[in-house]
């Protein structure tokens, strides 16, 4: 058993919010019922970068990003302890509204999940409508902007009234990204966004991620190490709910300090 403390980039929680740190995770633990799935995660995630979280399945990667927009606690019996500090503010502090957190931290899921009864435009506008935007012109402009950011505009601009589920799988996933972008989040969480897509659709999403990190911080879970190597600036390796190593992606893949990391990235695992 490898001691997880060794080599993991431990920082005192909430003390190291240099301007470049967007999300600072400190002493984070998470449970499903009595089963602990994350133990003592400390992680400073820099702003305007793409960060990949890798690890074997069941290591807690999805749980980790779901704690960043307080989605984890929605599962019955799920529990979180510790701190997640976004822009200097602990989102688990008492009095914080989880709904307000989710509005500023967008999320895209494994399988594309557009609302089936809404049109392409309606899907993108859904979040704005929740926020009370009713003005047709404002909505149209926001829809176009979000679809352009998601590199989908050219493909759907003539069919904004078509049902969102009529699009191809890859388009649907970009639609979901556009839907998340429309409310103007500062952090975008991607939970294995390409796992249900073919290679061409995958490469489009990867290109998109590279563009998007100019504007916002991207945290993505992936089971695909090549994908992490291609798009991420930083990579975190999780194993059995513990953070084993976090560093620049290149160093994780070329000169990892932990034996476990090396074994995993070279495919000599288990």
């Amino acid at each position, binding site marked *: 058993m490898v001691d997880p403390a060794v080599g993991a980039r431990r920082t005192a929680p909430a003390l190291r*919010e240099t*301007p470049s740190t*967007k999300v600072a995770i400190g002493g984070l633990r998470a449970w499903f019922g009595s089963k602990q799935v994350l133990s003592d995660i400390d992680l400073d995630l820099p*702003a*305007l970068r793409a960060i990949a979280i890798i690890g074997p399945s069941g290591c807690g990667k999805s749980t980790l990003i779901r704690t960043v927009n307080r989605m984890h606690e929605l599962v019955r019996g799920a529990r979180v302890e510790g701190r997640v500090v*976004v*822009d*200097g*503010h*602990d*989102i688990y*502090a008492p*009095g*914080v*509204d989880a*709904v*307000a*957190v989710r509005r*500023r931290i967008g999320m895209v899921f494994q399988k594309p999940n557009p609302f089936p009864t809404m049109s392409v435009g309606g899907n993108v506008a859904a979040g704005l409508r*929740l*926020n*009370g935007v009713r003005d047709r012109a404002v909505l149209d402009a926001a829809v176009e902007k979000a679809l352009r950011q998601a590199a989908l505009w050219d493909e759907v601009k003539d069919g904004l009234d078509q049902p969102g589920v009529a699009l191809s799988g890859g388009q649907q996933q970009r639609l979901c990204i556009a839907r998340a972008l429309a409310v*103007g989040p*500062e952090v975008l969480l991607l939970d294995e966004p390409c796992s249900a897509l073919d290679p061409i659709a995958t490469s489009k999403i990867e290109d998109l991620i590279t563009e998007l990190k100019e*504007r*916002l911080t991207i945290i993505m879970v992936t089971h695909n190490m090549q994908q992490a190597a291609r798009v991420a600036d930083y990579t975190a390796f999780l194993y059995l709910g513990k953070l084993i190593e976090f560093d620049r992606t290149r160093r994780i893949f070329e000169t990892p300090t932990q034996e476990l990391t090396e074994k995993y990235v070279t495919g000599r695992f288990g």
Partner: protein
Amino acid sequence: MSVGLTGGSNPFRSVSRRDTIRKWHSHLMLVLCIGAVLIALIPLLSILFEVFRQGLPALSYDLLTKRQYFQYFAGGGIANALWGSVLIVGTASLIGMPIGILAGIYLSEYGQGRPAAVVRFFADVFAEFPSIIIGLFAYGVIVVWTGHFSVFAGAFALSVMLVPIVTRTTEEALHLVPDSVREAGLALGLPRWRVTGSVVLRAAKGGLLTGSLLGFSRIFGETAPLVVTIGGSLFFAKGLDDTSSSLTYVVWRGATSGIHAAEVRAWGAATVLLLVVLAINISVRVITSRRAER
């Protein structure tokens, strides 16, 4: 987009007026949903309370053992109606259950493709026929044919109601039996009909029992088809060809009679009805939900 909102108040805490309104709107709507549950519980509790309050005191040895008197007379019982219900529902079950179970076996074990889909669809629609229509059917076929009201006409109507119910519950129960059980039976060299007849049915017997019980309780509480078929006699039915009363019939006639003595018998009969129906339903639901949780 601004980055680095250090210091100042927590943006995740300071919610706008709009957010506050949204939050309260959400709370309000969900409270209304809980209110809907209460709205449904009030009549349930009121029915149980009133029937038992007025009916339990009426339940006496005489009520359960004496036949009905002419409705203006106090005293007398509902024993003839109790006997009528047992006779009618029993006969209906004897006719309807086997047909329903066999049809359910057909759908589950042999039914494929279009013919089975048609039968299934017919059974679904059939199960929702207004019961008075079934009564009218029995009246047109049995009462008009024999020339008089009878236990059999009522039993026929109820058996017709029972068939689609039992068909669908049987099919569902047999669906729950895994194919491995069938394979095991066939591997023993049993012919298919015996695999179905003994192995599969035995594996599904819990589901068959609960389905049959629910069907039984449904026709036990049925009134409309009986109103037009059994004739409503004050005496014990001597056989299937005789006129009869039933518990539900007594409730209907008594409640609408405006005569106190008959109303008392109506509450008494309603209590017996409710006790039987609730006992069956509660036990079946508790057992099935236990099984589902496992």
